[in-house]
């Protein structure tokens, strides 16, 4: 029992540290890649190729004045960034990064934990993460902030529905809610091949759920002057930012596990033990790169377009996908 506890604590510390590091450097990657897309350099002054930029940003955040607006609801205003970042950092608990390896004669699994209801746990945390955004705008007592909050919340709950429905067809072919088991059903055919429509829908819903371009309504800077976090400054502002990027990385890892076969190569090509973790990382990197690329490519949708897409297109399509999956699986069996 003590062994287990020590192993868990060490794993949690390592994963937590790596996650924060990756979050910091995703911001650097995004700024550099977006810079290239827009024919400019992006941050390249602080350290070699600007590699120390995230560190500088973090330090700056701490030493900036922490403004609490006079009209704000103080308690909720301070609590909102915490409510936003805690669920965002907890999603990683049930995501498997690879198989397992031997260390000092112990078998160490490449994940923090595996639970039977992993997917529902993730959806629950995604739901809880909405409070930070909703309350942040409300507590600021700012008109733009509140409008941004309401729009974001309505958008997130709408796409959460389509996201949930899309997941159903994946669970139907995998027969489990555990991400480890879902990955292990994809040794030959990835779910992206078995469920192409679900893959496509999940990608769209996922982007909307994490408020990424072209669904970045809360940050519509032209209309809402930044949206729900308009009144936030210093590290509290940075925390909303970190939560956003933690969500982005989590989404890339979830898509890798659900649709891209986790740490397996496609078409049943055997994956050597040493290559499993690099294969997983490569897939996550490709997805993160895609998220940056599409941000540099797509214009933002209008709010009515976002809502129409979610309710009138994605939801019926997800339902139709469940129906078709059901018919095919039942007919084969």
């Amino acid at each position, binding site marked *: 029992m003590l062994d287990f506890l020590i192993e*868990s604590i060490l794993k949690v510390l390592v994963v*937590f540290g790596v996650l924060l590091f990756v979050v910091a450097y995703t911001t650097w990657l995004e700024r550099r890649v977006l810079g290239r897309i827009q024919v400019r350099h992006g941050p390249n002054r602080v350290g070699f190729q600007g590699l120390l930029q995230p560190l500088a940003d973090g330090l700056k955040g701490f*030493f900036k004045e922490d403004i609490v607006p006079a009209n704000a609801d103080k308690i909720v205003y301070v609590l909102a960034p915490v409510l936003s970042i805690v669920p965002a950092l907890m999603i990683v608990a049930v995501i498997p990064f690879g198989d397992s390896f031997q260390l000092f004669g112990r078998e160490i699994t490449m994940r923090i934990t595996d*639970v039977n209801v992993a997917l529902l746990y993730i959806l629950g945390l995604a739901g809880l993460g909405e409070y930070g955004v909703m309350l942040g705008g409300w507590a600021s007592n700012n008109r733009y902030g509140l409008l941004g909050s309401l729009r974001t919340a309505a958008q997130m709950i709408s796409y959460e529905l389509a996201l949930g429905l899309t997941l159903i067809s994946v669970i139907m072919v995998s027969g489990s*809610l555990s991400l480890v088991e879902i990955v292990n059903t994809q040794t030959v055919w990835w779910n992206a091949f078995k469920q192409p429509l679900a893959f496509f829908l999940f990608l769209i819903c996922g982007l909307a759920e994490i408020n990424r371009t072209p669904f970045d309504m809360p940050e519509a800077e032209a209309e809402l002057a930044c949206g729900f976090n308009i009144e936030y400054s210093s590290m509290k502002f940075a925390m909303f930012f970190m939560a956003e990027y933690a969500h982005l990385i989590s989404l890339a890892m979830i898509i890798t596990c659900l649709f891209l076969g986790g740490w397996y190569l496609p078409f049943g090509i055997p994956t050597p033990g040493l290559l499993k973790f690099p294969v997983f990382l490569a897939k996550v990197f490709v997805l993160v790169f895609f998220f940056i690329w599409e941000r540099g490519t797509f214009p933002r949708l209008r709010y009515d377009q976002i809502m129409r897409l979610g309710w009138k297109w994605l939801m019926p399509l997800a339902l139709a996908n469940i129906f078709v999956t*059901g018919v095919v699986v039942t007919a084969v069996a």
Partner: protein
Amino acid sequence: MLQNYVPILILFLLAAGFGLGMVLMSAMLGPRRPDSEKLSTYECGMTVDPGARRPFDVKYYLVAMVFLVFDVEVVFLYPWAVKFKALGLFGFVEMLVFLFILLVGYAYIWRKGVLEWE
């Protein structure tokens, strides 16, 4: 089984400590030179409107309400999807009946214009 949730509890404690620590450090490390202009609501230079929290369109309420109903529906689908292959044709048909009844509701809200945003 419960053992699998122990690491989640550890992660929760760490994440909560991290979040609260960041807020605390940010408040302690930064300078503090408040003035009435700085603490006033940010309105891009317009005159500050005291009543930011005003009642909004009932549309938002409707979307939240409709979401709640369909969310409960999806919750029923998860256990069904897990056991879908074992339940066989009978299970598939009973879920189709369940979904059909809710599709009636979906058609109703579509006709009523709940999904229209202009």
